[in-house]
């Protein structure tokens, strides 16, 4: 069934695929931006595990996927940082944690709470 992938690499590849599924579910189904960010990071990390596991050749781990994964992790982090800042600013302005079409307006009227220092 599993080709010459070192036995435990296949396990990680399949676990990685499952993680991608879990992450995608979090990214698509959950409404809270921070939850979706967690989903995004898990999906990314799962994808990288698949990439790393698939790169496990007979003579040890293939360095190219490793380098690309480091790049991927840093890119994922910068995206997470940007969205966190945007979500924080949006919540400060409107008092809502999620997107307008998914979140009821805060009970203190439409205007958001006074700016938290």
């Amino acid at each position, binding site marked *: 069934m599993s080709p010459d992938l070192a036995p435990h690499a296949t396990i990680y590849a399949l676990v990685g695929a499952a993680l*991608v599924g879990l*992450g*995608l579910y979090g*990214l*698509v189904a959950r409404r809270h*931006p921070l939850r*979706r960010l967690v989903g*995004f990071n898990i*999906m*990314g990390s799962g*994808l990288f595990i*698949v*990439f790393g596991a*698939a*790169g496990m050749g007979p003579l040890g781990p293939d360095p*190219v*996927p490793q380098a*690309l994964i480091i*790049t*991927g992790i840093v*890119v994922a982090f*910068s*995206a997470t940082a*940007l*969205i966190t800042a*945007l*979500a924080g*600013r*949006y919540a400060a*302005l*409107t008092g809502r944690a999620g*997107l*307008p079409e998914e979140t009821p307006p805060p009970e203190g009227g439409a205007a958001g709470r006074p700016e938290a220092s």
Partner: protein
Amino acid sequence: MTEPLDPAALAAALAVALPLAGALAALVMGRRAGDLFFVTGPAMALVAAALVAGVAEGGPARIAVGGFAPPLGIALVTDGLAATFVATTVAVMAAALAFARGGLVARLRETRRGYAFVALAHLAWGALNAVFLSGDLFNLYVALELLSLAAIGLVALEGKAETLAAAIRYAFFALTGSLLYLSGAILLYAATGTLDIALLGAHAPEGATTLVAGALMTAGLCAKTALFPLHAWLPPAHAGAPAPASAILSGLVPKASFVVMARLWLEALPDAAGPALGPLLGGLGAAAILYGSVLALRQERLKLLVAYSTIAQIGYLFLLFPLAGGALSTQPWAAGAWSGAMLHGVSHALAKAALFLAAGLVLARLGHDRIAGLSGLARAMPMTAFAIGLSAVTLMGLPPSGGFIAKYLLLVAAFASGEWAWGVILLAGGVLSALYLFPVLGRLFAKGDAEGEDAPEDEPTGPLPSRAREAIPLVLAGLAIALGFASAWPTALLAIGRPGAAMEGLE
């Protein structure tokens, strides 16, 4: 190993390096960032010219970055497609940056929006060139990611609640798209051991892995290009951003992921697609045309109307796949369809950027962009009205614009290939775009004091824009129209290094 200095290689390297250097300078300069335009604008024009000249003479070339050829290193691909889109990007970016100098980018002190705009615009510029020139799937992922982050920053630039919400929504679509694209790239690397598009084309991988990879990458790129079912993020994002940012977002950003899709299905996996891909993407494109047009019809605000028209116009691009995709690329009409789709990409970029800049001028002058309140603008701001007219002509694909040539080439290909259904959709799209664009032009010609239509508070609040600033959208729209007349040269340039041995046109 330093071979003689090849101008195309240097131009390609500078096409990416220069805007990024500009971005770094903008990051550091702060207050004087607005004047950066005087350096990067002309320099990039020179670089684009050198690249186009290099490609025109030397033909398509693959430049190994760092001296290591693929599969180990990354290859830059300088073919007609890349050169044409790099040149188009110079035109739109220079216009957007020049336009921003007068308003968004204050000269006296460093404002949040001014500082961020100049830096993000240059970053987007570098990212766009990196995408057009790159021939490596993972490199495309990183460049697309840089483009997405810069674009998200541009969307959130106004800082108002709805633009932040639009930016967050856009971010999640773009990020999901990137990861799906990355998963496809990873699987292709795992299957063939290379990430280079040309080598993938040579490998011609088969089997389940390739199909799954192709499907995932297509889904990801469709999310980033806002093709019909995955388009919900585009209108609020592009309409909410400041005018020069909307010009960049709507004119150029979707083209980048479309070019990646074109390279994927026409160069990397030409015959892995099977018969289903063309009709699927063409069908979605057609749905985008109809959906975008109908919704544009119902908009009261100009910028939202223009944003929905972007969704419709993106639909035209995807007619490339049913007409020239996969196994069809050897058919005689495929060349025409390919040139038509790419020319549409170029003329739409110019016209859409001009329209958004003109809408920005209207917004600055009247304080609102309600279409009903635009009456009599032709008298107050004739050049802006004229720019809106010319870009509307291009978007409708009426002669003598570049849009017409593109539509004509696509139509001929559609009829020649026997699937005239795409031709009918193209024609319907043209009529629909006339339906939602001409009322806007009508409003411009309406007399200022048309009986009681515009409420009293529609008195123009902002100052009249300076003639130079009003000229920018006019120049861009003029370029789109000029593309209609002088389209022989661009189509020839586009044909250099075109995938597939398609015969030259129909003669």
